[in-house]
């Protein structure tokens, strides 16, 4: 039975020396469907999309467009076939206007003179038709992330692309914006456009996709109709075993105040205005407090101020009864503050150091690991081996593996092992599961809850609302550098949080 496939990738095998990134993968995209591509990190999703985009040439397999075999040698070929992509990290020129960005590369011209009026008409028509609200004359640097994404989508539409690829599009959006995007996708479907939707968020797949192709470790697991499946089954297909999606946790028993932040301001590296303004809250032993918010609302800077990476310009930070507002990073770390940093490559690891050297990053100077200035390599090795064993950090050569060569999930596990094993009083965990697969997320969530249950104070900073709702005992929402509300996860909803995160609502001071 010949189905109406607009793109077929048949038996694609893409090998990199030593590994098969794609091993006999088949993906068939019907005309007018939303097709999700699901898989853990390293499952081969990006490689497959790179093949479709002409960035890689597969060793085996072929690509069919509407039943005819095609060669896609580079992204221009892909574009000519009507394939467009919204990348996870937008590819926009910040100092150009929205309109200029949309027409960039396919500028309409007469004898070399720009015909912007014509372009504007087309863009506005598209914007109207699909409900993609943009201001064509605004600079990209001035508009919200959500609007930037709409600009990216308009770029594809402007090029008359029929096959639209979305690479993890919801990571940067508020719940409201996500709903809006889903609506837009449904609109495309109605117009007969075909959508490939790369994601690891199961609820979004359930909400919008028609079918879902699942990859695992470079291999094709299967394709399923969303109507006949559920989240548990999808996650089982993706991970290969049962996964606990909800975190089991007992009610919290908060103890004494561990961290007391009063009226703290932290300067911004890019603006004159403070990135964090007048933030006050407490974290007690045995509770998980979460700072929620959309990326770029001061959470990063607040953590920098808290951990000493950035100077605090106003207010006080009291940690275990001691004023540490101006203490050095080493002093904070010595007095029991652990920090799982937001950016594991920038801060968390010395990537070209071995795993064992990374395991003692804050502790190499302690008597346990050095004598008379000489590092006791045997002790470091012993310690590192124990952490690897205990926290199941997987790597090619164990302790001597260069951190750079490890997978993102295991790099993160190594950091978490290191930070938890220091037996901190306060664990500051920033985006601890960013970019990780379901299996690793499950593991890390359990570790964080275990820390809480062991009487540690936990400050979690997360952009993932599911994580926020799942893990925290109290939620603080940050918007434009201020804490605009405090919530109990048991009584609030994702929608309510979303309104505060977007700045539409704000709780009065002193509640």
């Amino acid at each position, binding site marked *: 039975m010949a189905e109406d496939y607009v793109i077929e990738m048949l038996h694609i095998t*893409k090998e*990199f*020396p*030593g*590994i098969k*990134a794609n091993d006999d993968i088949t993906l068939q995209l019907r005309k007018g469907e939303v097709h999700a591509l699901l*898989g853990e*990190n*390293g*499952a*081969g*999703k*990006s*490689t497959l999309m*790179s093949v479709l985009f002409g960035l*890689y040439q597969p060793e085996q397999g072929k690509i069919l467009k509407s039943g005819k075999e095609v060669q896609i040698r580079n992204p221009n070929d892909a574009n000519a076939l009507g394939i467009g992509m919204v990348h996870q990290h937008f590819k926009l020129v910040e100092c150009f206007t929205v309109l200029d960005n949309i027409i960039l590369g396919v500028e309409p011209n007469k004898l070399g003179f720009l015909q912007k009026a014509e372009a504007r008409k087309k863009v506005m028509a598209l914007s109207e038709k699909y409900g993609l609200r943009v201001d064509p004359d605004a600079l990209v640097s001035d508009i919200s992330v959500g609007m930037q994404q709409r600009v990216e989508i308009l770029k594809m539409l402007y090029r008359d692309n029929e096959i639209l690829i979305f690479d993890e599009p919801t990571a940067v959006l508020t719940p409201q914006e996500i709903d809006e995007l889903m609506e837009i996708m449904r609109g495309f479907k109605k117009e007969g456009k075909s959508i490939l939707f790369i994601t690891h968020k199961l609820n979004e797949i359930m909400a919008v996709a028609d079918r879902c192709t699942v990859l695992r470790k470079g291999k094709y697991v299967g394709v399923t109709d969303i109507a006949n499946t559920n989240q548990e089954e999808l996650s089982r297909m993706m991970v290969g075993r049962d996964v606990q999606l909800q975190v089991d946790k007992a009610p919290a028993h908060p103890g004494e105040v561990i961290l007391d932040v009063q009226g703290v301001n932290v300067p911004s590296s890019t603006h004159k205005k403070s990135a964090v303004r007048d933030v006050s809250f407490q974290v007690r032993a045995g509770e998980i407090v979460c700072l929620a918010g959309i990326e770029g609302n001061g959470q990063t800077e607040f953590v920098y101020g808290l*951990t000493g*990476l950035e100077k605090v310009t106003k207010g006080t930070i009291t940690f275990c009864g001691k004023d540490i507002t101006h203490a*050095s*990073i*080493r002093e*904070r*770390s010595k007095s029991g503050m652990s*920090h799982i*940093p937001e950016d594991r490559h*920038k*801060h*968390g*690891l*010395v*990537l*070209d*150091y*071995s795993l064992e*050297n990374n395991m003692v*990053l*804050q502790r*190499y*100077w302690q008597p346990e690991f*050095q004598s008379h*200035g*000489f*590092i006791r*390599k045997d002790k470091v090795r012993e310690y590192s081996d124990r952490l690897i064993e205990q926290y199941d950090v997987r790597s090619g050569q164990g302790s*001597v593996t*260069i951190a*750079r*060569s490890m*997978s*993102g999930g295991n790099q993160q596990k190594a950091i978490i092992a290191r930070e938890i094993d220091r037996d901190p009083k306060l664990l500051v965990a920033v985006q601890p599961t960013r970019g990780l697969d379901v299996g690793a997320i499950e593991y890390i969530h359990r570790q964080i809850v275990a820390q809480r249950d062991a009487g540690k104070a936990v400050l979690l900073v997360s952009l993932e609302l599911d994580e926020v709702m799942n893990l925290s005992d109290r939620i603080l929402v940050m918007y434009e550098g201020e804490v605009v509300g405090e919530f109990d996860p048991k009584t609030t909803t994702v929608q309510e949080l979303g309104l505060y995160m977007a700045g539409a609502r704000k709780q009065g001071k002193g509640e």
Partner: protein
Amino acid sequence: MDTKKKMLSRGGNSRSAFVSVLAALLCILIGLVFGYLVLLAINAEHAWTDGFVRILKGGFYDAPYGVGRTLANAAPLIMTGLSVAFAFKTGLFNIGAAGQYTLGAYGALYCAIVLHLPWYVGLLASAILGGLWGAIPGLFKAYLNINEVITSIMFNWIGLYLVNEIVYGNGTGVMYDSRNTRTWNLRRLEGAEGSIIPDFGLNNMFQTNSTTIAIFLAIVVAIVIWIVLDKTTFGYELKAVGLNKNAARYAGINEKKNLVLSMVIAGALAGFGAGLYYLSGVSEWNPLNSTTLPAMGFNGISVALLASSNPIGTIFSALFISHITVGGSFLSTRYYPTEVADLISGIIIYLCAFSMLFRGKIAKLLSGGKRADKTGKKED
């Protein structure tokens, strides 16, 4: 920047060491071929025996004298190589070794000629002055975030003119021998006998007058630097700062202090090299002719590159570069202009800078391109 990263990412394991050595040898080979082509182009008839073979033989062409000269020249070269390599480990490009070397030369010569102090005090002085000259770009880098390359180039020239001005002193400088238009020859200067580095019979052995224990001192320093970098908490900190400044800061390491210290030590190493050279009496400082920076400083960069910043490796790469430089000086002047020697050693040294490029390629060949699959997976 990218090359710097690659340079730093050289891991400590034996395979990467093997790759480094292989890459260095490959560079040398290609450099030699190019050198030979130049000889052919200038005078094809004599290119082999009177040209190429002499360069290859290096100091051995006129043994033992030539070998003595190779060793005497290698000692300061090891030091400037170490200077550059050490800074590399902390993520800094010390292009200022020449200036630090100049200051070191002044310190050593002042102690010898004016104060008649023993040689080890002179060496200490040269290290201190070199370290001071290294500290300045280090401070600028750490506290004002000014690129160390720019400041150290400027301080190369400031150092050179400063030292020349003081030494020359309008022809009346105390260290200046107006008859030879150079600083006083230590071996002929009364009272400076104790300021010359002892040779323990090496001069007799090699029939030279400037082969001292400097080479052994340099080797000892190289080993000490290797131990510091590889075995100590200080080395751990320095390398962490060099590989990832942000992570070092996150870990509570004072990265500013480490940046400055690294430049001080790099400067001291280069200065010490000048001390080894001038207190061995290899030559004298010429404040009139020295309108170009001492080549020893820049050749240190090649030495470090060829050695992939490995302190032990610098010993061998410095010996090699010294070897071909001396070999070049034995080229027959009948067939080749004297500049050809410099040209050929220059070509080889230049090619040494490519060793990094080759290292990448060789590593890829050996590992079968593991890097490629990583980039493929990462984007998932």
